[in-house]
């Protein structure tokens, strides 16, 4: 008796690679700051005190202490910064980029890679557009000033928390540099 051979089931072991990179970092940078003529990468390493400050301000947990940040420059004048970050999806990491202008407001959010079964709706321009113009003074809470997407709650929640954390990061470690 070999139950697997007599299985009622249809074959279900179908592993496909539907996960995708939707934008490169370079493409995201240019979409945020089309007038920029260069993007200068900075490796940002946070101190313990900065980490605590960011966690307190953002009400989130800091998983990383190093960040990839680019300064957008036009004619050597700073236009803003681009932060590339990743947050937990259900199985893998969701990689996204966000831009903050010199006034400390969000200039854009782009999902760079997404490999989950569900929740890909966070890529929708309408959902990402909610963040534009928001700053550290805003709540950035799901179901308050950020609309949730039915069926994509985990992704909405984690991306929203990540953006809130990066706004705090900007104020603690980048705004005055």
């Amino acid at each position, binding site marked *: *008796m070999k139950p697997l051979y007599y299985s009622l089931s*249809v074959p279900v072991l179908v592993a496909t690679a539907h996960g995708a990179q939707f934008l490169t970092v370079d493409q995201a940078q240019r979409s945020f700051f089309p007038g920029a003529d260069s993007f200068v990468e900075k490796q940002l390493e946070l101190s313990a005190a900065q980490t605590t400050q960011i966690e307190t301000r953002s009400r989130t947990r800091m998983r990383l202490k190093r960040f990839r940040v680019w300064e957008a420059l036009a004619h050597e004048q700073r236009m803003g910064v681009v932060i590339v970050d990743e947050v937990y999806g259900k199985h893998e990491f969701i990689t996204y980029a966000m831009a903050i202008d010199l006034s400390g407001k969000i200039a854009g959010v782009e999902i760079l890679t997404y490999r989950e079964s569900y929740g890909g709706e966070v890529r929708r321009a309408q959902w990402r557009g909610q963040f534009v113009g928001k700053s550290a003074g805003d709540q950035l809470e799901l179901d308050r000033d950020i609309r949730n997407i039915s069926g994509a709650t985990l992704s909405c929640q984690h991306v929203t928390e990540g953006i809130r954390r990066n706004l705090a990061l900007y104020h603690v470690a980048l705004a005055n540099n």
Partner: protein
Amino acid sequence: MFYRSLILFMALLTVLALSAPLLLTPARADENLWGYLYGTDTLPKGSSEIYNWLTLRTGKGKGTYRGWDEMLELEHGLTDRFQASFYLKGRSHRIAGGALDDDPGRSLNRSLEFNGVNVAFKYNLLSVYKDLFGLSLYLEPSYSRIHGVTGERMSQFGLETKLMLQKNFFDDQLALAYNLTVEPEWAKFKASGEREKELELEHTAGASYRVMPNWFLGLEGRYHSEYPEFKAREHGAYFLGPNVHYGAEKWWFTFTFLPQIWGRPHIANRGGGNLHLGEHERYEFRLKIAYVF
């Protein structure tokens, strides 16, 4: 009093499951982190999963005993908080050498046969990702035609009701869950014409931790007890074991090994001094493989 409370509890669950289309938040996906324990997620509207469940129950402390249970489940999200499932069930047995205490002469070597159908409904009331904890209700009417332990032909109807709780920590890397399951069953045996009814009560709890992208390791425990004729408890057994879960974009699997660690009443001359090997077995293994579409 106890039974009246259970019946009230089941009635409450049923009413809530069928009439709660109004509340609160949606969840995300009913991917099974555990083999026996359920999380509170439901499938998003319009999405589907097909699962194959394969369970091996083995070890009666005497003779040879292997019971294979197989289910093919199709699950569909009707709304973002309400999902329905349909199950086709199969069952096979290998029984020899006096493995059954109640019927030592019974010998059976039967290949996989159709064992009936289940339908199930799951409603998510609180999202584990947004609310203080996740909460879902579950209702599963079932029909079975082969007895799980003896392999006897029968007609059995069951109504499983389940309360599910889940709490996540560390950005949802760690999930803790608990299920309370109450299931009355009514059976008629084909050969003898004998009828029986019983109540099954089960507590299930576990933890699952995402150790690296795609991979989760967990532990689950289960207490199962039965009350024939809805009266006194006939037996109860505890199971505890590890599980591994792998999830990718289009498919996932979960494997659980669940040995019995304590059970009563103990049946003499069978070894396993602290185990109940009459209605249960020494070891259970379960593999679930699902395709997402």
